């Protein structure tokens, strides 16, 4: 049983996570994956936000609603592409053995890889801040709604990264990691929402709660509810715990 670690131990614990995260992040950029992802994300969201027919100028008000709903779908597809190799590639090449025989705990590997992907997504999302500045110059913006929308995007990304990491953990094939992440993701992203509309009573409520969109939509409109935070954090925790338990099976 682990008791609560002292400050020095926490420092050491975080340090190992950061060393792993930094290597992973560097590998994203070295492999051009990071640049492709950022450019594609900015391109897609920029095109649909500013140029396509249902664009921001048709809203009749200065808001980033359009951008948030586009980002909602682009991130859904991009995140599995980033996470698919995180553990599958280590399993395939055997480097996972190398990593786990260093003074590193399974948890630190999981959290390091999560952190690296989350930082990359945060950079991509951060680069859309000029959209916000532009819109704010066009008219009066509900700053609260924008901030809550951005927080919603980050939380949603976090949950999908956790799912993607899990999907990458049980196979040594990146494609399996990608498809499994999309499959689990689409449940939360879309299918649960559809199911809830076809049911009544308890099941409607249940699937409505499980659906990402129900939580994300309210956040992108500026309503942060405690249950929304709980929802995203739960998916993250469950995804990471599941990943860790798959990883720890390697020791048996």
């Amino acid at each position: 049983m682990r008791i609560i670690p002292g400050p020095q131990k926490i420092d050491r614990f975080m340090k190992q996570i950061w060393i792993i995260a930094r290597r992973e992040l560097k590998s994203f950029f070295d492999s051009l994956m990071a640049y492709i992802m950022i450019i594609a994300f900015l391109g897609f969201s920029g095109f649909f936000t500013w140029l396509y027919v249902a664009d921001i100028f048709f809203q009749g008000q200065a808001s980033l609603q359009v951008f948030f709903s586009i980002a909602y779908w682009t991130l859904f597809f991009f995140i599995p592409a980033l996470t698919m190799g995180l553990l599958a590639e280590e399993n395939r090449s055997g480097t996972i053995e190398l990593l786990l025989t260093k003074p590193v705990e399974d948890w630190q590997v999981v959290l390091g890889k999560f952190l690296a992907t989350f930082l990359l997504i945060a950079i991509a999302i951060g680069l859309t801040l000029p959209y916000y500045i532009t819109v704010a110059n066009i008219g009066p913006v509900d700053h609260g709604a924008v901030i809550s929308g951005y927080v919603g995007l980050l939380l949603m990304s976090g949950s999908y990264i956790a799912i993607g990491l899990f999907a990458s953990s049980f196979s040594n094939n990146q494609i399996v990691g990608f498809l499994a992440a999309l499959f689990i993701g689409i449940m939360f992203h879309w299918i649960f929402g559809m199911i809830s509309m076809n049911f009544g009573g308890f099941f409607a409520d249940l699937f409505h709660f499980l659906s990402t969109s129900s939580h994300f939509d309210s956040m992108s409109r500026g309503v942060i509810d405690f249950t929304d935070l709980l929802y995203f954090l739960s998916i993250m925790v469950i995804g990471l715990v599941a990943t860790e338990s798959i990883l720890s099976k390697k020791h048996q």
Partner: protein
Amino acid sequence: MDIVIRNLTKKYGAQRAVDDISFTVKTGEILGFLGPNGAGKTTTMKAITSYLIPDEGDVLVGNYSVNKDSQEVKKSIGYLPEHNPLYLDMAVIDYLRFVAELQGVSKDKINGRILEMIDVCGLEAEKHKKINELSKGYRQRVGLAQALIHDPEVLILDEPTTGLDPNQIVEIRELIRKIGREKTVILSSHILAEVEATCDRIIIINRGKIVADGTSEELRKHSQGKEILRVTVEGVERDAFIREAQQVSTVEQVDPLDDEGSYEIQSRPDLSSRKSIFALCCEKNWVLTELTPIQTKLEDIFHELTMDR
């Protein structure tokens, strides 16, 4: 730092990959771990590096147990896994830095250690190349460099010379011998000559159990108590020699080797026929041109111990 393995058992399903093994390796000792493929060498090494949790028993590295303090154990071990997995997209120097940081080498020492490893392992010209641009021999050196980067007291090398050309094998062996003077080294191999050339002590393992343990001389002595002599005699017919030699009380068997007068003479257990063969030749006035005791080859011992009967 000593390594103590106590009643280690590791099962894969119903199969016991390692079955109740115990042995100790002392500081400064280079232990060769020998056995056919699938004998349990790699599993034992993985248990020592605390990658695999033992089903039963314990491994102590210094004062730390892999069951209780696996993180402490990992700090004092340098490990080169089988097939030498590496992050192929990293440059050699970046990779060594990554491993050094993970191993907790302090900031002011990291650069010094990296340069030292590059020097020791002969990677100077390759240090800025990506690992996937390197040949197998250089990758093996990178694997060895990462295992040594934190100056560990224990070195675990799983088949360190597979896939290398003969020159590289000699180089790596020399490197291991050099390093092994102050450290505790366990290396596995199924190449017998390699183990004999590098190791102070040999453990042969088969089907998860230790079947032999000792220096190569000791193993020879134990495996066969029978002396074998190669003898060449001139001035006598083959049949006559065989008949006469078999009369000698210590001789068990005489086999002709060729038509030139060479024979292989096997003595009875724990007896030597050297003197009596010499005396026989003197008595009969035969010219004895060769009398060589033949060493049992390690291959034979290995074969004898690990053959499935």
